[in-house]
């Protein structure tokens, strides 16, 4: 009387552009929240970028080997013999800054999940798969991370240029380490992107686990 239907197709995956547009719509609506999360990334990446750039600048100037420049370097407390390498404390500081910003993004994303429980439930009632929910959270985090990193990168570059020009004058331009600068910028951008994607793992997993029943929860 009740013939069992054997074949139920699997819900098709939603394409990335659609995931993107849903994520972006969400971020546009919660723009100020996204901005605050991004500021954390901007500062951390600016700091990282600034330190990386300074190191390439200094190394390139030491390699120049000019006496005038060496005096300037000594005045700036650079240890010429050790090659101007960044000391351990600085590395630790950079690490801590990145970690803080990681925790910041995780926190913001977790709040976004809690805030949107009913929304996630509704999406699932409409036929969203776990995969779709996971993807929207990764996209949201990644977009914030990449935009934040790009801004941080620019900020780091500007500050570094200003400081180096002020300290070393035209030497900073004469010995401008173009290759090193590009590498430093890319490393900063990459670090920010990785940071934001890693930060999204737990929140996205939590979001995907929310049940469609949550859609019926009456909010107070």
């Amino acid at each position, binding site marked *: *009387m*009740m*013939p*069992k*239907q054997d074949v*139920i*197709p*699997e*819900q*098709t995956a*939603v394409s990335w552009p*659609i995931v993107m547009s*849903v994520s972006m*719509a*969400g971020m*546009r*609506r*919660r723009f100020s929240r996204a901005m605050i999360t991004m500021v954390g990334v901007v500062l951390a990446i600016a700091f990282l970028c600034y330190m990386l750039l300074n190191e390439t600048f200094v190394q390139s100037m030491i390699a120049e080997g000019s006496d005038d420049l060496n005096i300037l370097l000594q005045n700036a407390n650079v240890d010429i013999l050790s090659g101007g390498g960044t000391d351990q404390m600085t590395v630790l500081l950079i690490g801590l800054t990145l970690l803080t910003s990681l925790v910041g993004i995780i926190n913001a994303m977790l709040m976004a999940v809690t805030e949107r429980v*009913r*929304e996630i439930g*509704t*999406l*699932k*009632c*409409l*036929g*969203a*798969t*776990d995969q*779709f929910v996971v993807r929207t959270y990764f996209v949201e985090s990644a977009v914030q991370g990449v935009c934040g990193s790009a801004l941080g990168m620019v900020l780091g570059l500007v500050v570094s240029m200003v400081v180096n020009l002020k300290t070393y004058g035209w030497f900073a331009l004469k010995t401008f380490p173009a290759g090193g600068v590009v590498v430093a910028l890319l490393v900063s951008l990459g670090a920010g992107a990785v940071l934001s994607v890693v930060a999204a793992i737990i929140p996205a997993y939590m979001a995907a686990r929310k*049940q*469609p*029943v949550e*859609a*019926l929860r*009456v*909010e107070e």
Partner: protein
Amino acid sequence: MSETEYLKDAEEREEDIVIRAIDVKRHYHGMDGNVTKALDGISLDVLRGEYLSIMGPSGSGKSTLFNMIGGIDSPTEGMVFIDEIDVAQLDSYELAWLRCHKIGYIFQSYNILPVLTALENVTLPMVFAGNSPNEAREKGMAILETVGLGDRALHRPFEMSGGQQQRVAVGRAIANDPVIILADEPTANLDVHTGEEIIELLNKLRDERGITIISATHDMKMLDVSTRILWIRDGKVQRLEERKNLNIEIGRIESE
């Protein structure tokens, strides 16, 4: 389809069962070890194309029953078949497919996605179903016309009244031509007039498209358009009656 046409004969009915619940129980285990029997053994056949209203006092288990027959929660005991599919056998991707293609949900608090426009809300289920954005947009516009919001396609929820939001929700519910619409107190947050419009809209969809409507309600107007009415109390079926057998005046049913 008229009432008499599809209620005429029991055998025909048997083939036209769209939801079958068999001895469904749902128990919630509280922190302190006590158990709430939200549903305590409900068996129910819902017929294709009918308008079933579910009544009962607050806490009687209406919403819980909806969760069970809508494939959005699983029973502690018992079985649920939706369009001949045993819901318990499905994995999460198949459940997503079922919710997407077979069922349209309408909520008391609308649940329109606040970040999306009216049109995007209506097209989202079609996108989940794998339709191309262009197809979805075209069909979405037609649906918005159907629910009387043709000129509001690009409005966002906060620019719309409750009644308009609920119309968007109705449009979203029919996006993938579902077999069933589940509406949990769809008019509870609306004024009488707006509520009536929503009920008329649902009834029109049942008439024109043969969609089965199941609705929890306290709304007497809604009982009037129903083909059958189910009363539940303490998680059990108290009474199941065809509308045409209720010759009582609408005002008096309420006092039962």
